[in-house]
């Protein structure tokens, strides 16, 4: 008895020439195009209610989005919180991050910030204070504020861009660093440009994706 079905075998069938890349985009197979990841800041305005942070962080882990940092804090409106997320993904991935975030019911609006957005981190750095004069000279260089000192240690608060904090940490390391505690990044759009406000909710996700539509200027 016959097992299986009849019909031309695989090698007798025509096959199309085209190919898609891993992101499902049609490509010229000769020029194998892939999107490189880039680092960007996404800001989300969310309902200030229990569980929203775990909704967001859970979304990131189960969808395997490459997350660098995530911070959350209250806003001018007590019913709203702002979540700032640094992600590193290829462009289609960043697009997915935004869309998936927007799908969460407590999420009010989501946007990717322009590269010129204000970005700040805070670090507390506890160093050995055997040489107080040199330590304080380094602190001055980075506008670090002393927040605690003891005969053996000095603790500084540094705010600024990630690069600045990294440079400060690097310079402080000559004295011996005992402990570092850093926040993630928080950010805000410049001037009258709104970071992620209620009016952005309806931003049509399809347009941003439409190949003929112009990409937003913040796509660096």
């Amino acid at each position, binding site marked *: *008895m*016959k*097992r*299986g*079905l*009849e*019909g*031309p*075998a*695989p090698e007798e*069938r*025509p*096959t*199309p*020439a*085209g*190919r*898609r*890349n*891993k*992101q*499902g*985009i*049609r490509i010229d197979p000769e020029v194998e195009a892939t999107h490189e990841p880039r680092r960007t800041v996404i800001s989300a305005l969310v*309902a200030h209610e*229990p*569980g929203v942070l*775990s*909704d967001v962080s*859970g979304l990131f882990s*189960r969808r395997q989005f490459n997350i660098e940092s995530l911070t959350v804090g209250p806003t001018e409106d007590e019913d709203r919180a702002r979540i700032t997320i640094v992600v590193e993904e290829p462009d*289609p991935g960043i*697009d*997915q991050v935004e*869309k*998936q975030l*927007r*799908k*969460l*019911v*407590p*999420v*009010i609006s989501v946007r990717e910030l322009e590269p010129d957005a204000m970005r700040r981190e805070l670090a507390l750095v506890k160093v050995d204070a055997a040489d107080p004069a040199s330590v304080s000279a380094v602190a001055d260089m980075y506008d670090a504020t002393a927040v605690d000192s003891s005969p053996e240690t000095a603790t500084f608060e540094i705010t600024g861009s990630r690069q600045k904090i990294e440079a400060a940490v690097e310079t402080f390391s000559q004295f011996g660093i005992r402990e570092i505690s850093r926040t993630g990044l928080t950010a805000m759009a410049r001037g009258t440009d709104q970071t992620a406000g209620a009016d952005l*909710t*309806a931003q*049509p*996700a*399809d*347009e941003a*994706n*439409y*190949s*003929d539509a112009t990409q937003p200027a913040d796509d660096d």
Partner: protein
Amino acid sequence: MSERAAKVTPAEDEQDDDQITDSATPDAATADTTATDAASEETTDPVTTGAESVVRALENAGVEYAFGVQGGAIMPVYDALYDSDIRHVTMAHEQGAAHAADAYGIVSGEPGVCLATSGPGATNLVTGIADADMDSDPLLALTGQVSTDFVGNDAFQETDTTGVTTPITKDNTFASDSDRVGSDVSEAFALASEGRPGPTLVDLPKDVTNGETDREPDEPKTPDTYHVQEQADPEIVAAAADRIENASRPVMLLGGGVIKGEASEACREFAVEHEIPVITTMPGIGAFPEDHELSLEMAGMHGTGYANMAITHCDTLIGIGTRFDDRLTGGIETFAPDAEVIHVDIDPAEISKNIHADYPLVGDAETVVEQLADAVDESPAAKKWRAQCQQWKSDYSMAYEAPEDAPVQPEFVVEALDEATSDQAIVTTGVGQHQMWAAQYWTYTEPRTWVSSHGLGTMGYGLPAAIGARLAADDDQEVVCVDGDGSFLMTLQGLSVAVRENLDITVAVLNNEYIGMVRQWQDAFFEGRHAASDYNWMPEFDKLAEAFGACGFRIDDYDDVADTIEEALAYDGPSVIDVHIDPDANVYPMVPSGGDNGQFALTEDQL
């Protein structure tokens, strides 16, 4: 007088006795109106507890059935249900409650409701909720929870249910306020079906449902932060229409969203008017009549050869309400590689998630298809392409051999069942080979007649789904569960429910004494080493059915097939046919996972 009315809380006991009317809601603020209302109407008694407002929310939403199992933390809700017209169907296992509610939602289009107690009750629902989530089925789960002052203390039967279900629900809520709990349920009900449907859950701590309240729930309405875009961008619609007019090899790919969005009719009209060949995904089965000339049936891993040829070679793919799941696409690199993709979906996140959309059309499927219909003036010149598709239909026909002296072939049984039932008959399935045969060899012509577990692939889905489908279906619609022996064994305790409720369903167990799909893969990819897939210890399902009080039948050879099926269908109540099929039968065509759809295997040698 109801029992509930006699049970007043101590605070209420202190009320003036003559204000306590027959239907007893002796809340001081509302007692006056109660007296008059009770005389005229039975359903307008004001609520007095959180649990009553939960039930009121369900009543307001028009809920007819709820499926569940009792338990400590959910008892207040059951107590309130006791007085309601909502029919509670007690299931034998909470997984069955979730599947029954899920199937109810698929067939009726309205969210199915399931209930469970805290802890094990809630965790038993999890599989069913995850199943509904993967298939975007509207489902509302209500779970009991320990009292709020015990939460977090590992109290008896405590589980972090909202935590456990966050990844598998569209939204979930921990109800923390007796005054709000009814509105929480209303909102969850509305959310389950609005936009892209999905499961929602409300976790109900016992003190919250027991707590006093006179707050009536708000009407079912989604929260302000939830937005659904109905209409697609007209500019992209125009561009897509242009693309369709100029297509030379167009296909429509209809997914489950077409059925959920009630867009089947609009899609049929569009396809027929412009003579575009139509493929469905597995969840899209029924969106287009499979006996229509333009139908190429289902594509994907076990899709027809002709559907897979057409999808591989098309130049314009109009995907509607599909999420381009990997069982459909096979390897992304080789999926419709020459096609410009028009993608219609209500969920923006589905656009370009797996397959890049050249023409993203976010919106309600029916609305957008109508937009497209208005925008397309000229039909594509695709005569040659249609001829090619017909050629593929005959090249790769779904024929099988069924010699008299060989064991019964499963395809034959599926076809015989199809023949014996009407076009309106509803088919539910378990997961495995039988599910694929039921998809391939039954000719579906109507939406909401195919009820199966697609995204999660949950064995044990078939019987509880048949229970839910039966209660949602019209009386003259037959409900047939095509099951596998392994799948049936997972939830067959549901037979007790079907017998108790006298549900007219027919279960055909395609019994190969294997978990056959696994055996098929072992033969293909593990050198025939049948590790733990040989189930030759199966019970006699016909006798088991009789033990439950159902009607049992058995088929061993071809002579029995037609008559037995007829008898089983005629039986007014649950019947089970233990169909002993060829244990070596396999499902073809087959695209190995991640493979090229155009390279489907027709025999084992081609794998």
